[in-house]
């Protein structure tokens, strides 16, 4: 009786076993457009700026944000032709005194688009035409920056490249 009860309990308590399953039919990841979402240009003061930051750009809200070692942004651009890449950055006096002139190179999806040479402390505006075919419409485009000299904090080793005010694509 006890054995029967225990067996029954075991059977009942197990519930239904799912087993394993094959790989299902694979879907298509891109099915057209959605309204809203990411734009082609972002001000760092915009509350949505965090969505554009992939890595190494400060998360503290403000009109500018610190770019660290490997800063990266992403955009979604609808028209793919006739675009300029534009950004505003600054090298503050306090870091310039340590680093001296800085060259910031910017790449689109890994391809070098251009660079800006900052030979004094202050604000710089960048505008560079994007060659045709570099951007796929309505797809994510990643922009990475690389400063050849960075200010390194003597206390915690944090590396600061420059201050970023805005970036993106314009027509």
């Amino acid at each position, binding site marked *: 009786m006890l054995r029967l009860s225990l067996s029954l309990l075991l059977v*009942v*308590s197990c*519930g*239904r076993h*799912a*087993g*394993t*399953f*094959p*790989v*299902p*039919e*694979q*879907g*298509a*990841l*891109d*099915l*057209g*457009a*959605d*309204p809203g*979402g990411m734009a082609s240009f972002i001000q760092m003061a915009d509350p949505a700026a965090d*969505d554009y*930051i*992939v*890595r190494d750009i400060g998360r503290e809200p403000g009109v500018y944000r610190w770019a660290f070692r490997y800063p990266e942004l*992403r955009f*979604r651009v609808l028209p793919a032709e006739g675009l300029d890449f534009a950004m505003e950055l600054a090298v503050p006096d306090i870091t310039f005194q340590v680093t001296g002139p800085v060259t910031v190179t910017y790449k689109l999806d890994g391809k070098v688009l251009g660079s800006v040479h900052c030979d004094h402390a202050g604000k710089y505006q960048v505008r560079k035409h994007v060659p045709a075919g570099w951007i796929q419409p*309505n797809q*994510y485009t990643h922009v990475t920056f690389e400063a050849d000299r960075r200010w390194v904090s003597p206390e915690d080793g944090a590396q600061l490249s420059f201050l970023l005010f805005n970036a993106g694509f314009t027509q």
Partner: protein
Amino acid sequence: MLQVLSILLGAAFTVGTAMALGSLLLNRLRLTLYRQEAILLSFVGGSALLSLAIFFLCLVNQARRNVFLLGGLAAIVWAWRQARSEARPKAFPDAPKIWHVSFLVLVGAFFFIYFFNALAPETSPDGSGYHLGNVLRIWQHHGFVWTYHSMYSYLSQGMEMLFLVAFSIGRHSAASLVHFAFQLTLPLLIAAYGRRFGFPVAGFFAAILVYVSPVVGKAGASAYNDLAVATLLFAVFYLLEIWDENQEVNLLIFIGLLAGFAYAVKYTGALALPFVWGRLLLRRRDAGQHIGTWRQLAIVTAAAAVMILPWVLRNWIWLGNPAAPFFNAWFPNPYYHPGMERIYLDDLRHYVGIRHWWQGPWQITAAGRSTQGMIGPIFLLVPMAVLALRHLRGRRLILAGLVFAIPAYFNSGARFLIPMLPFLSLALGLALPAFRGVLPILALCEALACWPQVLSHYCDPANWHLGSIPVAAALRLTPEPVYLKDHLPDYTLKAALETFVAPQAKIFSLNTRTEAYLNRTFVVGYESAFGNLAQDLFAVAYDPQNQPAVRRRLRFLPVITRAVRVVQIASASSFWRAAEMRVYARGKELARSPEWRLSAWPNSWEVQLAFDNSYATRWSSWQAMAPGMFLAIDFGRPREIDEVNLEEPRAPESKVQVEVLDSRARWVPLTDTAEISPLDIPQGLRRAVTRELKARGIGYLWVEDADFFADDLRKNASYWSVTDLKAARGMHLYILN
């Protein structure tokens, strides 16, 4: 008028058949009962037998009108012939005339309200929703529909079995009238209890309090089951009291049947059987009859099992969960998620709008907003019932009332207090006679205070109660469709639904619809695992918080293994979710192969959602995040891998580790260090949702303006790829293009 006759015939035939079966049963059991209580208990006991018989007919798909008529008439004729040959049982001793008359007048007045409300087209939320929705579905298929999945179809449906008989003749209102019959039986049984045990005044008093209670009136005049279960629980108590005096063994069979039927009618009725056990065991101590008590327990349990097991076994075999739709964590199954069960139960327990403890008694007795109904202002006097503790029967009544009030702890609805009312009312009746003349005054005041037109002056406008006496609608002088359109917003889309939507098509809705009148199949967001999946699709497309916003990248030295899994090592109250799991070797994703086998714990049934290359779908544990949960791939042969990625919504509380299967079939942990980066969510999620829904057989959406995605759907219909077919009263019927 013909329609009214068919409604009355349907109800009368069902009640008559039940009484005939009950009469045959009581005769076979040779129980010594008074005439009045024998009639009432015949109906109650016969209902159990009829319900069981219909269950088996549903099992073999023979739930047909002719079968009901044939079987019912046979039972009626048999019982009638038997009654002719038997001596009539003796009647109760005379009760005080004034109380007899008062009882008839007050109960008669409320009977009039309740009868016309029950006879009017059924428009109660659960009645026109799932109670009669289930009945309609079973009726159309002549039996249980195993392919249809909704938590409401998993509940025991002992009452729906009775509804089905009435429905087969008189449709919806006939079913309501069957419940109305239980509503009338309860006060008569309470009065009978008082008369049998020597306190007729308290009995009549309690019967009036219960019958005029607004929530009793509303629930009893609807196709619900609360009055049936309350009647059964009281009948069980009543019979135990008789058994206490005469020790008839056959009485235990009857008690067991009714206790089991209480479970079959409503899960909360499951309390009846342990109550009976407790009572028998407690008496054992008094009487010292050890062996006899165990036999008694066995008899009661066996009789109850006859009524309980059919429903338990049905769910166990059908769903893998004998207690479905509850206890899903104990009995995992692909049809209802434990997490959804938790959300559902938490919601039921939640009192909206009660901020201080003292608001509770007012809401439950006189306001009725937060508790979706009220039991009547006199029950504010319930503390006085403690005076009944002076009497043995008073103590028993209060104990029974407290036991049968347990479900009210889990459900804030006033309906869940109905089973307690007969006991507390009787206890009050026993407690208050010390104050001369107080009982008639209280009974009269309560009846006046609960009269619908009076009630409306002080209760909350949102209180669930009978507000009128719809004589014209009941007699069908107002055409049924007109009345239904006025009282059921869903009914306004009925014509469009049945014109545009093919009979076999499925419609997704976030909320329960009035399925008893809408002759199509709905997939409701919270009612099934399938509904959860459909609702989750909308949540993902609409709400960025639900979208796979990050990639969790776990890298390790290259390893050759046959299987890999990602194991959760954190705990949190949220569910663990993953839109996609990908495996890499030397920077390239391993192509998903037909030889792979996928599994997960828990919720392995939906593991494919993490491997379908669709960001609209996602696998979810559907349980609170806990260590040991996993997503696993068996490659079918050794493969070299060095990276696993999870693409998931932001979940900082989650922490996972990668494990691989070694040559000795042991899982070896490799790393729990994850690099988390934003994920580029592709466009077209809305369209992806439409595609996923269509792939799963859902072709239409029933959307209310208040639904969380309603605005987005309306503004961006082309992005969703849907077309609004018909809109009315804040509801839209969309077709997926």
